[in-house]
């Protein structure tokens, strides 16, 4: 897979009063992710070519992918494929990059969701809704010890667009 073919579709930046190591740990371990990411457990084999998985609270694999770039605690790129029937076939792989850099008395975390083809705004609305919630919660967890419990409406607009493409949605 040539990552040069991928263009950013969603970019979200948040600043966290923490250290790059702690932010990296929060992004890559289940112990933290379960708290800020709606109970989802992240399992990452932290080397290029390693497996990346996010399990739903019932233990099923919801997102699976592969580690593409791994430079702790600065940069992690993974494929981030939601396991819905025909999704990758119709949309291609989704690439997610986390960039972590020191900034003043804080850490700048930038999330980049990229695709190798144009993706409809209706489909991107899911990530535009989800990333600010997940990363706001991660920030709260690292700064206060308390994650946010964000009850999100079902991303209807994205679900309808996926269904129209013949992608199996729950």
């Amino acid at each position, binding site marked *: 897979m040539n990552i040069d073919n991928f263009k950013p579709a969603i970019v979200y930046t948040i600043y966290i009063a923490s250290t790059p190591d702690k932010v990296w740990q929060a992004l890559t371990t289940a112990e933290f992710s379960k708290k800020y990411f709606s109970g989802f457990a992240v399992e990452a084999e932290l080397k290029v070519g390693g497996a990346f998985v996010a399990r739903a609270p019932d233990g099923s694999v919801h997102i699976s992918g592969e580690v593409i770039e791994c430079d702790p605690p600065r940069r992690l790129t993974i494929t981030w494929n939601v396991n819905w029937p025909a999704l990758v076939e119709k949309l291609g792989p989704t690439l997610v990059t986390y960039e972590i850099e020191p900034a003043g008395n*804080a850490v700048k975390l930038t999330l980049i969701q990229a695709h190798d083809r144009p993706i409809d705004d209706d489909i991107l609305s899911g990530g535009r809704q989800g990333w600010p919630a997940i990363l706001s919660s991660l920030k709260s967890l690292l700064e206060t010890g308390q994650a946010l419990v964000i009850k999100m409406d079902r991303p209807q607009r994205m679900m309808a667009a996926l269904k129209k493409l013949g992608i199996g949605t729950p």
Partner: protein
Amino acid sequence: MSKPEFVYVIYIASTPEKIFKALTDANMSERYWDGSRVVSDWKIGAPFALELKRKDKNVTGKVLEFDPPRRLAYTFHPQHDGMEAEPPSRVFELEQQKDQVRLTIVHDNFEPGSKAFEGISRGWPLVLSSLKSYLEAGKVLHAPWYETASA
């Protein structure tokens, strides 16, 4: 070509009332916004000023909407872009969601290529991250560029 627009969403474990106050109170903004004071009497059409640490860079505008604790909007003329015919505007929307608030900021009506647009796209995630830290943890954030540049 449509005019550039900047949208940012952040969730804060606080109440709409506290966040609205932080957005409209000069003493509070001075804490989380690198010394910048939001000054206005917040009547519709009244002047708005953002008094920066470097006074020659002050930003002025006028109040468009004041609907506590849900919606706030004002225009602003960033001095370094000169006076544009129609100044850009900044809209805040606050929506309570259980134990937190979804805060959405929309900046629009920039001229294509506007320097202020670039500055805002870079600066606002920090200002709002700092606001969140201030309300949740009593901390404020500082960026390295605060020492050399103005917002």
